[in-house]
C-alpha cells in the first residue's frame, strides 16, 4: 500500500489513456451481452428482453453464415500464405542486391501502397476496371477482345482482391524481414563461404532459419485474425456491388450491412460475437501450439 502511495503520480499519469481504453475496448467487451437480447429502441439496451441464444439460432440457420465464413477464412489463409512467401522472397532478394542505394530506393517505392487509404485504392482499382473507359477494358479492346463488366462478374474478384491485398501489404511486410536479415551475424555467412556453400544453400540454411522466429510471431498474429477481414478491401474496393456478394461478402462486411442497412442488431451482434470468440480461441490455440514446439518462440 505504501509503495502504491509512493508511485501515485505514475498511476495518475495513466488515467487519461486508461479512460480511453475502458471506453473504447472494455465497454464494448461487456457490451457483447446485447447478442443475447432482442434489442428494440423503445425499451433501450437495458430494458430489452433477454432471449438466450435465439439470435445465434437465426444466424446459423441463415444461408449467409456459411458463405461469409467460407469467404473470410479462405481469403485470410490465401492472403497469409501469399503475403508471407512474397514478403520473405522480396526481403531475401533485396538483401542480396549489390547496390545499397538502389536497394533503399526499391524499398521506398514498394512500401508506397501501404500509405494509401482503401478509398484511394478503390479509386485506383476503378481507374483500371471502369467498364466504359478503364485502362484494362481499353487495352482489351485494342487487342480485339470484348470488354468485361468487372463490377458485375464474380469470377475475377478472388484474383483481383488477392492482387490488391498483396500490392498493398507485401512491401511493408518485407521491411520487417529485411531488418531481421540485416541483423544476422555475418560470421555465419563467412563460415559458410569457407565451407563452399552456394548462395542458395546459404539462404536455405542460414537466412531462413535465422528469421524463423519473426515469421512465427507474424504468423501467430495473423492466425488470430483468420476470422477477420479487411473491411475496406471487401466493401470499398468492389464498391459494395451486390452482384459480387457471393465472392466479396465476409463476416465484417456482412456485420456492417446487417447492422446499418437492415438495422438488425440481434443478427449482427451475434455474428460479431462469434467472430470475436473464435478469434480469441485461435490466438490462444496457435500460441499454445508454438509454445509446445518451442517455448522461446511463443508470444506469451
Amino acid at each position: 500500500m505504501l509503495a502504491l502511495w509512493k508511485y501515485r503520480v505514475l498511476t495518475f499519469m495513466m488515467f487519461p489513456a486508461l479512460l480511453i481504453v475502458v471506453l473504447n475496448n472494455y465497454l464494448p467487451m461487456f457490451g457483447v451481452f446485447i447478442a443475447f437480447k432482442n434489442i428494440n429502441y423503445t425499451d433501450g439496451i437495458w430494458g430489452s428482453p433477454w432471449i438466450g441464444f435465439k439470435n445465434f439460432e437465426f444466424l446459423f440457420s441463415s444461408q449467409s453464415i456459411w458463405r461469409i465464413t467460407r469467404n473470410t477464412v479462405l481469403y485470410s489463409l490465401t492472403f497469409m500464405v501469399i503475403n508471407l512467401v512474397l514478403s520473405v522472397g522480396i526481403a531475401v532478394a533485396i538483401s542480396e542486391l549489390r547496390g545499397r542505394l538502389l536497394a533503399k530506393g526499391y524499398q521506398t517505392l514498394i512500401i508506397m501502397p501501404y500509405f494509401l487509404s482503401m478509398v484511394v485504392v478503390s479509386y485506383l482499382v476503378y481507374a483500371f476496371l471502369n467498364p466504359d473507359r478503364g485502362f484494362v477494358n481499353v487495352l482489351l479492346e485494342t487487342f480485339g477482345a470484348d470488354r468485361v463488366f468487372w463490377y458485375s462478374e464474380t469470377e475475377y474478384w478472388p484474383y483481383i482482391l488477392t492482387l490488391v491485398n498483396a500490392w498493398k501489404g507485401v512491401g511493408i511486410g518485407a521491411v520487417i524481414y529485411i531488418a531481421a536479415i540485416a541483423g544476422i551475424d555475418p560470421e555465419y555467412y563467412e563460415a559458410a563461404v569457407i565451407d563452399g556453400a552456394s548462395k542458395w544453400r546459404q539462404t536455405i540454411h542460414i537466412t531462413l532459419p535465422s528469421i524463423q522466429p519473426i515469421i512465427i510471431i507474424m504468423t501467430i498474429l495473423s492466425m488470430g485474425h483468420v476470422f477477420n477481414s479487411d473491411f475496406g478491401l471487401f466493401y470499398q474496393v468492389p464498391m459494395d456491388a451486390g452482384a459480387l456478394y457471393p465472392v466479396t461478402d465476409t463476416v465484417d462486411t456482412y456485420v456492417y450491412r446487417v447492422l446499418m442497412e437492415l438495422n438488425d442488431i440481434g443478427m449482427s451482434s451475434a455474428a460479431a460475437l462469434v467472430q470475436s470468440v473464435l478469434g480469441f480461441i485461435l490466438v490462444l490455440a496457435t500460441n499454445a501450439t508454438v509454445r509446445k514446439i518451442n517455448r522461446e518462440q511463443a508470444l506469451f
Partner: protein
Amino acid sequence: MIKVRNKRDNSIGPVANAALNAWFILLSLACVLPILLVVIVSVSHNDSLLNRGYSFFPEKLSGIAYESLFKDYGTIVGAYGVSIGITVAGTLLSVLLMALYAYPISRGDYPLRSFFTFVLFFTMLFSGGVVSKYIVFTQAIGLLDSYMALILPLLIVPFNVFIMRTFFQTTIHPALIESSRIDGAGEWLIFFRIVLPLSLPVMATMALFGTIAYWNDWFNSLLFIRSEEKYPLQFLMMRVLNDVQYLRNNVQLAAQNPEMMSQLPNESLQMAMAVVGIGPILLVYPFFQKYFVKGLTVGAIKG
C-alpha cells in the same frame, strides 16, 4: 537500416545482380504506375478520355479538374479542413496519452507494471466487435455524429504503446531517473524534461503512425458521422465514388433524375479527388521512412 557488411567474397554474381535489379524495377513500377495513372487521368482533357479512355499518354492535357474541384465543390475544401483538424488533434493527443501510459509500465520499480501491461495486452486478444462498439458509442456515451467518434477509436493503439515501452526500457537508464529524483525532480518533471526529450525518435515514429491512421480513416465516419459538413476527406471521396457507381448501375434512376446525373463529377474530376486524397503523406513519408521502419521492426521483434 540495412547494415553494410563485407561482401567482397560473398556477393551474388553480376548476372544474378542484374536480373534481380530488373525484377525489382518491374516491382517498383507495379507499385507506382497505378498512382501515376490516376494522376495522369486527373490532368487529361475530357475529349481524350472520351476518345481513348484512360491512358498513360493522353492526347490533350487540362487542369480544369483541379480548378473546378476547388471552385464548385466547396465541400471538398471543408472536408480537407475536417481531415487536417482530426489528424492534427488526434495525432498530438494520441502520442501524448500513449507516452503517459507507456512510461509507467516501462519503469522496473513501478509495482502495478504487470497489471497495467495486461490490461492493455488483453485488448489485443479479445475485442467486443463492431456492433457492440457501435451501440456503446451511440447509445451509452452519445458520440453519434461527433468528431470525438473519429478521434477516440484511434487514440490508444496497444501495439504502439508496447513499442514505446520497449523504447523507454532500452534507452532510458534507471540510474538517470534515480539521480534526477535525488536532485529533487518530481515524476512529472522527470517525464517531461528527461524522458520525452530523450525519446524523440520513437515520438516521431508514433506521430507518423498516428498521422497515417487518422488521415486514412473512413470506417469510423461510415459508422458514426451523419451530417455532410462533418465528412472527412476520405469519407467524402468514398461517398462520391459509390454514388457515381450506383447511378451508373441504375440507368433508370439516372434517366429519371437528369439533374443528378449532370451534377456528377466527370472522370478527371473524380481522379483529381483521389490525388488530393492521397494527400501530403505520400510526399513526406520517404523522409520519415527511417523512423517508421525502426518503429515497425522494434515492435515486431520484441512482440
